């Protein structure tokens, strides 16, 4: 007998499951197929403008900085401005995401833009979010050929573009979009919810920013509502 059969057998014996599992199997299959939402807090249930306001408020509470841009074309200038404000060199690394690819980086001739995954020596990284969640000021990032996961964790400063129209009220609304993009039961390899910059409270329960991930998280919200 394999350990798989041994473990499953022990579970079935403890649960006193009968010889016919049809009812239990049907229950499980139905629940997985329905993936019905549970209790969704009222907090995020607002109109698009209200969701956006809540997103900014919650992001601020978790020490993420943010700014609102009238169009995606303003992103290169916003990146350069952010780096100056932090006294950082004019250099950033991004993924090959087409939404970032087509931005007018040539308008910032001082800004050196590298493309691809991080080797751990970048000061700043730029990513495009799949979605935002107003309920907790969270951005949702998905991995893929043009979206390296290392950019989310290795650079000291992480700048994330999120479209206002893609800021959902709650996580459940994001799952609906994930299923549309990756199919029923499908997921990207890595899906990251990021809520503020990295922190630790492990020394005397005092919260300090900048543990292993980025010390600061800056959200660039492109107003396409």
């Amino acid at each position: 007998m394999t350990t798989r059969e041994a473990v499953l057998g022990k579970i079935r014996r403890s649960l006193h499951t009968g010889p016919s599992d049809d009812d239990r199997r049907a229950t499980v299959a139905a629940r997985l197929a329905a993936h019905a939402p549970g209790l969704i807090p009222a907090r995020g249930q607002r109109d698009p403008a209200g969701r956006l306001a809540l997103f900014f408020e919650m992001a601020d509470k978790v020490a993420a900085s943010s700014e609102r841009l009238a169009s995606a074309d303003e992103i290169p200038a916003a990146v350069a401005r952010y780096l100056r404000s932090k006294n950082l060199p004019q250099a950033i690394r991004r993924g090959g995401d087409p939404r970032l690819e087509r931005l007018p980086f040539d308008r910032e001739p001082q800004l050196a833009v590298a493309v691809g995954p991080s080797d751990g020596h970048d000061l700043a990284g730029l990513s495009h979010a799949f979605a935002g969640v107003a309920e907790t000021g969270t951005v949702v990032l998905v991995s893929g050929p043009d979206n390296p996961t290392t950019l989310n964790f290795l650079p000291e400063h992480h700048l994330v573009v999120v479209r206002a129209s893609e800021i959902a009220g709650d996580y459940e609304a994001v799952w609906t979009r994930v299923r549309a993009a990756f199919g029923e039961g499908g997921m990207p390899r890595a899906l990251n919810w990021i809520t503020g910059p990295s922190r630790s409270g492990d020394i005397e329960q005092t919260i300090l920013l900048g543990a292993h991930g980025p010390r600061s998280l800056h959200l660039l919200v492109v107003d396409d509502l």
Partner: protein
Amino acid sequence: MQVTSPAFRENARKALADVTLQKALKNVEKGFIAKRAKAAEALPEFEALRDAARDLKIHVLKHLDLYLEAYEKKVVEAGGHVHWAESAEDARRIVTDICKRLGARTVTKGKSMITEEIALNDHLEKEGITPVETDLGEYIIQLRGEHPSHIVAPAVHLTKEQVAGDFRRVHTHLDAARDLTEPVTLLTEARTVLREKFLVADVGITGANFLIAETGSSIIVTNEGNGDLTQTLPKAHIVMASIEKVVPTLEDVDTLLRVLARSATGQELSVYTTFSTGPRREGDPDGPGEYHVVLLDNGRSAMLGTEFEDMLRCIRCGACMNHCPVFQAVGGHAYGWVYPGPMGAVLTPTLVGVDKAGHLPNASTFCGRCESVCPMRIPLPKMMRAWRNREWERALNPAALRSGLGLWAFVAARPALYRLAARAAGFGLRLLGRGGRIARLPFFASGWTANRDMPAPEGATFMDQWKARGGRSA
């Protein structure tokens, strides 16, 4: 790890006398209790979410075999491997085999309580593989050769001065004269030292907060980002998960995530919630080349269908220990194994035997705070009581306790004698009282007042007062 639970009394006595530990334990209240209360209050649906979370997990446990099968199928579809482990030994062997096949020399680790449960680090070291803990608290206690004293805050028993001393002792390549008085300096130093470890590790091992049957995803929740670096950078990612971690759908995980961080640290959500599904895909610029999940039973399947089944709802938030007066007084190490506090008092006897861990369910005042804050509404005091009953049935208690309880039972079963004895005891205790308090009880009862006083009875017994007010007697 070695079980020192049989020495709980001695462990507790030492902990109470440890001035540094007592200072560090003051941070439990500061760090957790008020924050949890505030987070719970800020979400009007919090109590209803706790009910939903409980009901969800009850459903999962009744169908655990089927959800595990569904989960396994999806992991394999995504290119991952599932390994089933009946025992700690199985799990250790699976992990070592993977590491050896890949020629691994160093392994980074995200926080995982079940790797403590199976003593994985000791085993890896014996095999010549160096495990590096990357969660700041876990890193600190690894430097000290200790084990976590709390399931969420492993180094809660330490002061910043102790951490500074350890960093000086171990990070000898750094300037000996550097200033380490501020916690932020300690954090930066750990970040720099561990960054190099992340970049050279061959295998990354993390735990799992949840597994999703619908998608075959594993989830980890961290604030530091260490878990993500652990699993993204090396050649292989090994997920260590116990069998009860499986949850049906993405929507179901939302419910649990909404209560987890609020109960644990008082955050609305942890900084990083990461859903991992299989290894690096075609065209991916990063991510692990292999993705393995080890599903560990280690005694859990035997809890199903028993009075301890409810314990399998636990999502390891630590709220029960944060709110426990016994944990606050003695800290986590006194409990003598991996899981401290009320959840440990229930789980440890299940996993290592009540003969070894019988003291733990007895180390409770039954004040009920643990159950009142448990996001999964696990009836912890009821289960501690169940362990006391089992201990009694198996005659594991000391003879003095058994004869004392026998005497009490004899008296309690005879109402007239009981009333007489209660009146006599009340009278005697009043004589011992000074200003309403009793400083010292004599003889066999002296232990009761060794570390604290107790209130003296103020008047007649309850039964006498009841009678005087015209109450009916049974």
